[in-house]
């Protein structure tokens, strides 16, 4: 065995004060970082930012829903008003037959060609073609109706739907035709809402909810129109119905929000007042969204945009939330800040890779130098080597001291970190026990590699100044590179990041201590750990063999 107990004891006596100071200081620093910062809840800012973004999303939904509902209501009234046209009520049956005949012909042709009746996509295509053909063929008659092409195709679609539902409709009775058309319109409104939400990526369940809502809105709107039109001296006024639509929608939003917050069957008073508060707020938001929508429509009417474009633009503006109103880059930066893991950054990237290894690094540089080069330079190594102690024994014993002192130091740091994590909430804390243990292992392996390198320099050089400047100098250089590189690494939010500074990370072996990989749960940190251990082992071995072979000025 190349080990001298006496020499080991001598190294312990020479270095225990340094070891104790560094270990205690590092442990205290770590405990402060974890416990004090942990209980100060530094994630509050982050959480509130996150809340802002979540609330903004909800607000956006609410606004959109309000505008959609308002639109559905006014469209329904408009449709009911169109059907109420005296000319149409006289010729409803004839007009219906005219519209349907072209459509039915196309269906028959398709059935003959394919051997089966058209469904799904094919049926939709046929409806579109039939509508286009109808509009071109009857241009002169349709011009009298005072309707846009879009409105006519929508109307035709409803007619076709009615025909699909009831092919043997009694077209001699105008009343029946109009009632059937109204029913189809309601169905159509529901279908439109369903398709819209499905196209936005919502689940079928949610989309069905909106379908029911649209059906109810359309029914209410049409009923309301019919009731009003029965009254004596009724004159259609768009504004009155818009007012009504607004009123109906904001009350609907109020009720929806209120029900959302009442979860139990027997709500407490506090729950009720809470729900009322939120419901009022939602009502105000809905009202604002609808007003915004109307204002934009008024503003843009008469511009070069088509009606559909105006509606889409007005809806977009009305459903915008707070975050949609700030510049995109700022919003992105804020959102990233909200998602940033501050504990991971401070404990992983700043403490374990920089602040926490600074003192152990100073310890390693000083002790590694003092174990060989320092003693050769001063000449005190002569006393050890004038006893029957092999040079290899001296080198191995000093190496063992360096390794074991470092191991003991990091065991204590690990114990401190585990206790601190336990104090601030154990596995519920932002960093769990497994992660903190891997951080400690990584910091140990990093220091192990530096220790090997400094030991090698100490074994190669006979002068302290060379061993210190080449061994210690490069180690400190790497630590400084890691500090500079931090500003270019992606743990820092992009608002503070200078990407060019990432080059510094390529000059430091501390980059092999991958705290991000540990926190993300990937395993790429493992092979980097293996490289660090490899560097340590190779440099230690070179050191031992070099010390054995060289001339000593003793």
């Amino acid at each position: 065995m190349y080990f001298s107990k006496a020499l080991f004891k001598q190294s312990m006596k020479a270095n225990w004060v340094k070891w104790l100071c560094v270990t205690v200081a590092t442990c205290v620093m770590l405990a402060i970082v974890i416990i004090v910062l942990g209980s100060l809840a530094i994630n509050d800012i982050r959480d509130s930012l996150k809340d802002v973004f979540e609330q903004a999303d909800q607000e956006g939904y609410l606004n959109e829903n309000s505008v959609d509902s308002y639109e559905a209501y006014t469209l329904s009234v408009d449709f009911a008003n169109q059907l109420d046209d005296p000319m149409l009520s006289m010729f409803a049956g004839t007009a219906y037959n005219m519209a349907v005949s072209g459509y039915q012909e196309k269906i028959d042709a398709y059935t003959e060609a394919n051997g089966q009746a058209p469904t799904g996509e094919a049926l939709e295509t046929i409806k579109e073609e039939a509508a286009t053909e109808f509009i071109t063929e009857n241009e002169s008659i349709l011009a009298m109706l005072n309707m846009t092409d879009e409105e006519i195709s929508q109307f035709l679609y409803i007619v076709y739907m009615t025909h699909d539902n009831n092919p043997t409709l009694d077209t001699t009775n105008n009343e029946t035709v109009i009632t059937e058309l109204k029913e189809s319109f309601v169905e159509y409104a529901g279908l439109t809402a369903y398709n819209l939400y499905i196209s936005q990526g919502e689940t079928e369940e949610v989309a069905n909810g909106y379908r029911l809502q649209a059906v109810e809105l359309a029914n209410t709107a049409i009923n309301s129109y019919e009731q009003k039109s029965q009254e004596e001296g009724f004159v259609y006024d768009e504004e009155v119905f818009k007012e009504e639509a607004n009123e109906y929608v904001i009350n609907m939003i109020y009720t929806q929000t209120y029900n959302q917050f009442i979860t139990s069957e027997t709500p407490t008073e506090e729950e009720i007042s809470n729900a009322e508060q939120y419901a009022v707020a939602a009502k105000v938001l809905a009202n604002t969204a609808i007003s915004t929508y109307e204002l934009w429509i008024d503003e843009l009417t008469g511009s070069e945009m088509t009606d559909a474009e105006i509606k889409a633009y007005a809806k977009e503006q009305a459903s915008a939330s707070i975050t949609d109103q700030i510049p995109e880059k700022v919003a992105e930066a804020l959102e990233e800040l909200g998602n940033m893991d501050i504990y991971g950054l401070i404990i992983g990237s700043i403490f374990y890779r920089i602040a926490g290894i600074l003192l152990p690094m100073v310890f390693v540089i000083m002790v590694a130098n003092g174990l060989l080069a320092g003693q050769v330079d001063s000449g005190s190594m002569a006393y050890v080597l004038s006893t029957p102690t092999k040079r290899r024994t001296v080198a191995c014993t000093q190496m063992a001291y360096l390794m074991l002192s470092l191991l003991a130091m990091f065991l204590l740091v690990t114990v401190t970190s585990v206790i601190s994590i336990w104090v601030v909430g154990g596995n519920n804390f932002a960093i769990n026990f497994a992660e903190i243990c891997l951080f400690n292992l990584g910091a140990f392996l990093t220091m192990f590699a530096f220790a090997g390198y400094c030991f090698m320099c100490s074994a190669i050089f006979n002068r302290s100044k060379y061993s210190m400047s080449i061994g210690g100098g490069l180690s400190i250089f790497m630590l400084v590179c890691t500090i500079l590189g931090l500003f270019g690494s992606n743990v820092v939010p992009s608002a503070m990041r200078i990407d060019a500074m990432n080059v510094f990370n390529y000059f430091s072996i501390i980059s092999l201590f991958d705290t991000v990989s540990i926190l993300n749960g990937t395993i790429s940190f493992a092979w980097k750990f293996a490289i660090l251990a490899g560097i340590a082992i190779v440099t230690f071995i070179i050191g031992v063999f070099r010390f054995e072979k060289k001339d000593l000025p003793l």
Partner: protein
Amino acid sequence: MEEVIKAEHLTKDYGGGRGIFDISFFITKGEVFGFVGTNGSGKTTTIRHIMGFIKPKNGTVTVLGMDAWKDACKIKESVAYIPGEIAFPDLTTGIEFLKAQAELLGLKSMDRAEELIKRLQLDPSANLKRMSKGMKQKTAIVAALMADKDILILDEPTTGLDPLMRETFLELILEEKRKGKTILMSSQMFDELEETCDRVALIYDGKIIDIADVNALKSSTIKSYKIEFLDKEDYLKFKKLKYKIIRDQEKYYQVTVQIDDSEINRLFKSLSKYKLKFISEIKFNLEKHFKDILEKEVKGGKNVF
């Protein structure tokens, strides 16, 4: 005679004329061998080779028949060493250092160490860093002598000791010599080497210029006397007598004569006839011996000591 230490054609060239060149010598069992030379002449480099700290470029050094480089560890079982540079390991007190050293040496008893401490009047509880040069040297002496090794290698062991302590130390060395130990000692002081050594090697510019037998020098019967006369007349008359005059200074009426001890009575009889200012013996010692050799060897006869 058993050769305990033997160097053959030992060479280590550090470039620029520094280093040691073709050094050969041997030390027999029980002999005290001295190295003398100026700073940087190569004494310490030679000693480092013997201790196995440096690998020779050419030639070999053997200690007890073993190669000093390859068997360095084995050799240390019989060798004690006082380094030329006084620097201790990073320990607190003298006693702590001595105990650590004893442990490394595998020494069980500290009796000999305590005896040495008393003889040298050392306070071993003193802080190592605050010790004076002399105190440090005493500590180093105790550390080397306490293990009672057969071979002692001492690199300028008396540096920093006061004259009284130097005497005590030289006594210690003579005691060790009487015990039959083989001692190699380097120094810049001729008198202490003369007092203790059997043979002394003069090293100059990395080469051994001469190895002098101290005992032969001491037993030499040829002596020199410096005589100054009161007046010129007596001075001139004396010069006519057939004594061997090795130095003549007319200005002071001064002559230096060299005679054998057997002629001493004749000289005094002759001198009784003249008026003298003074007469003094110029000792023929190691210093003079080496000076004479160097004056012959080195061109220009620079005063090297």
